[in-house]
């Protein structure tokens, strides 16, 4: 009898959590959609978009380049060690290039920018909420979603592919440095193999993913920050939840996006 009661309680708790989760996802989608939509209405916030692009994009370049360089070095080293066992070291360059452009570039860029810029967005909006600055904008007759949210989302969606392109480029420089300069493989073979395997669509695939990741984490983080309650503690929680949710969603979404892209290629008859 008691066991049944515990089971029922557990079932109800799981049910309630699932309903809350679905409700929250729905609220986020609605929030993101209405914010993006209102971004197309006058007055256009170009200057705000540029200001946020400077923060999301420009201020992330160094950390993205640094991470890209060491990712290229580390990945190339591991691939080199593995391929050496089967005497296929000539393929290190193309394998690293494919891995970086299609998966690691967008995913790592997404995770780093979500942590840096997404966290800052949630914290900034949360602070504005608890200090009544968002209420002040509301009563001043300023559309807060248009002024605060839409420029952040647009700036992130624009900057993420650019940052990913930087990541890809620097990671390949790292790979070249390790393979050609440190391990002493032939440079001409390295680039020739990369060129023979890597196509523009592989790079575009990664850049598309990056834009989607940017859209997702900017909506998640701005939603968390915009709906902050409960003072300084609430700001901390909003930031934490915004960053963690974004990171988990980027990794989960990456898998589904990869499959969707494969399906798309199959549908248009392109070799996967």
């Amino acid at each position, binding site marked *: 009898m008691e066991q049944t009661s515990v089971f029922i309680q557990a079932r109800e708790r799981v049910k309630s959590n699932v309903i809350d989760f679905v409700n929250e996802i729905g609220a986020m989608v609605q929030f993101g959609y209405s914010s993006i939509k209102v971004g197309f209405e006058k*007055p256009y916030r170009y200057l705000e978009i540029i200001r946020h692009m400077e923060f999301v994009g420009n201020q992330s370049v160094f950390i993205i380049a640094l991470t890209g360089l060491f990712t290229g070095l580390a990945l190339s080293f591991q691939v080199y060690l593995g391929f050496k066992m089967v005497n296929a070291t000539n393929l290190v360059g193309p394998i690293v290039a494919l891995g970086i452009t299609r998966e690691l570039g967008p995913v790592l860029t997404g995770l780093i920018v979500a942590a840096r810029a997404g966290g800052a967005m949630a914290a900034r909006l949360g602070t504005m909420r608890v*200090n*009544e*600055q968002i*209420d*002040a904008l*509301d*009563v*001043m*007759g*300023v*559309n807060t979603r248009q002024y605060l949210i839409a420029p952040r989302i647009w700036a992130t969606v624009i900057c993420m592919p650019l940052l990913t392109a930087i990541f890809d480029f620097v990671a390949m420089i790292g790979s070249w440095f390790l393979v050609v300069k440190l391990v002493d493989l032939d440079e001409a073979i390295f680039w020739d193999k990369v060129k023979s395997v890597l196509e523009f669509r592989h790079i575009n695939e990664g850049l598309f993913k990056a834009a989607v990741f940017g859209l997702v984490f900017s909506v998640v983080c701005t939603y968390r920050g915009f709906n902050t309650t409960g003072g300084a503690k609430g700001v901390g929680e909003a930031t934490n939840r915004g960053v963690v949710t974004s990171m988990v969603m980027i990794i989960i979404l990456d898998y589904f996006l990869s499959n969707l892209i494969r399906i798309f290629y199959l549908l248009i008859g392109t070799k996967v």
Partner: protein
Amino acid sequence: MGTEKTPAADPKKETFDVTKLEPAIKIEDVWKTFDGKEYVVKGMNLTIPKGSLTAIIGFSGTGKSVILKHILGLYRPTRGRIEVLGQDLAHMDNNELTKFRRRFGVLFQGAALFDDMTVLENVCFPLIEHRPELSIDEVIQIATQKLVEVGLEAKHYEKLPSQISGGMQKRTGLARSLALDPEILFYDEPTTGLDPILTEMVDNLILETHQRTKATSVMVSHDLQAAFRIADFVAMLNAGEVLLFGPPDVFFNTDIELVNKFVAKGMRHQ
């Protein structure tokens, strides 16, 4: 208005008849629940006359801030009607509300200044947003004039809000709320957390502003002394309802026990 109190108040009468005065804000049978179970506002009726300075007082949790947010259109009533400047807020969509709110000015408890903008930029902001026809020089000129009106010295204009005192932040917040020459000015707990000297300064500032602008002013406050000193009308809320409304005199000649207790305690503590 202001220091010259509204006439025709019978101190012995416990509910003041404001129907003869032109209303700026009319709250009619407003109910509000957030969770669908418990009502925080229960059939509230309140009329705030045009051009008056009205204070809304009451114990914590009696619905003062909630009703203020209803008047500002930040909350919508579960039931009832709120008419501001002759327009029913319940029938406005979000865009209409956003435009309508440009006729308001609000001084928030913590001033709510934008912390990444200087004092001058804060006051320029509403002008840049809503008066695109003005040149930047004109915007700065108006903002400077508003800052002078609230008594803020020019040497502070280029400072960030974090670099000025609480009193100066209130002055800046007031200048910003006055920038668009609002028809209604709201003060949300303007003196909470301030020392007595600063409290008096803010009270005087509110009174001076009211006398100068002649705008309808609504002040939500815990500060009874200030409310009775500067307000033309006082509304006391209790449990989501208006317990007593009228000129300050009414509050000293009432048989309502809760009002007497609140007034006695409030005046003793201040």
